[in-house]
């Protein structure tokens, strides 16, 4: 090849190789920059996901404990839960807050307002020693149960009920007791009276967990499922 042709040709090759290198470098830089941004974005998304998952888990696992006060002294309360199991609750003069729940409203109270046999809800952290209470709510305890009516007293308006666990409960049907009967055709609940309740029917009831002067529970409300439903 002629020297005059070879030199410009060689110069051009070098020039384009340089240009090519520049292009590669530029594309690499753009690629690595966008990759960095992409990674940062992914990290941010991951952080957000972890934070929301932690919040969700916290919400899902934030539990409360409830029970009747069996013993109370400064900084420590002993409760007996629904399982008759005793639990210790530790209070803090500065941190623990106390409320009374009544008529679907809460009112702030003091530690000194708590007394034996009060039913309390404790929110806090469960440790090996007991519960470190953040908040304590004094609430009403309700008995919600069901069973078969085995006896009906028409004179004193009470019912004897045998539950699924073979426990016998006597229920007073008071003037304030809301009484519902299941319509077995429409499966709708209808208002009813004591006279329509029969021995053998199933009864679902809610009562305050404190016996009255007759040593029976006063029913707040009842739902009766007639025995005929089960004979269909």
């Amino acid at each position: 090849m002629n020297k005059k042709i070879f030199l410009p040709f060689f110069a051009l090759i070098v020039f384009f190789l340089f240009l090519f290198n520049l292009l590669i470098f530029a594309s690499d830089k753009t690629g690595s920059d966008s990759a960095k941004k992409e990674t940062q974005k992914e990290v941010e998304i991951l952080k957000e996901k972890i934070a929301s998952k932690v919040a969700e888990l916290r919400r899902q696992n934030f539990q409360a404990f409830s029970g009747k006060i069996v013993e109370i002294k400064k900084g420590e309360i002993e409760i007996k839960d629904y399982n008759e199991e005793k639990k210790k609750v530790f209070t803090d003069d500065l941190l623990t807050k106390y409320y009374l729940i009544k008529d679907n409203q809460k009112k702030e109270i003091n530690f000194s307002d708590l007394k034996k046999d009060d039913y309390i809800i404790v929110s806090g952290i469960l440790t090996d020693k007991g519960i470190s209470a953040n908040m304590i709510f004094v609430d009403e305890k309700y008995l919600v149960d069901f069973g078969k009516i085995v006896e009906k007293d028409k004179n004193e308006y009470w019912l004897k009920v045998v539950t699924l666990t073979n426990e016998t409960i006597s229920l007073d049907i008071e003037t304030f007791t809301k009484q519902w009967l299941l319509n077995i055709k429409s499966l709708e609940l209808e208002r009813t009276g004591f006279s329509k309740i029969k021995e053998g029917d199933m009864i679902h009831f809610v009562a305050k967990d404190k016996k009255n002067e007759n040593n029976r529970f006063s029913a707040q409300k009842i739902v009766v499922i007639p025995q005929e439903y089960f004979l269909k």
Partner: protein
Amino acid sequence: MKKETFLAIFLGVVFGFIFALIILGSISQSQLGKKTKSLLPQKKEFSILPAKPTSLKLLNITNPKNFLIIENDKVTIEGEVEKNSLIVIQSPIKDLVFQNKEEKFKVDFPLALGENVIKIVSYPQNPNLKTQEKTLFIYYLPNEI
């Protein structure tokens, strides 16, 4: 400029461009490949275990968890039980009675401030099956979480 010089310049430009395009093409293809791979759905794992035999469904409450603190004044109760059972859900503030057409059921249930004892009872249509019950203790304590 001589004809040969012009030809050399032209060939150099063409050669340089072709070479650059080939390399850039291969780079962008490998990047696209990576993206496509991440966009593809992940391979599902298939169980080799045999399908569960159809059996009688026991009352199972899948939501909510017991002893949970909730910030809203209602909760969705979800569960499963034998089809066509009569389900009674009772709390101090609400009574709900219905028959489930499917095994799974889902109902919204109101909550009162404080402790909510919710009793869920199922009476199966089949008289040979026993009545089942579950009790939930749910705490509606707003602003406590």
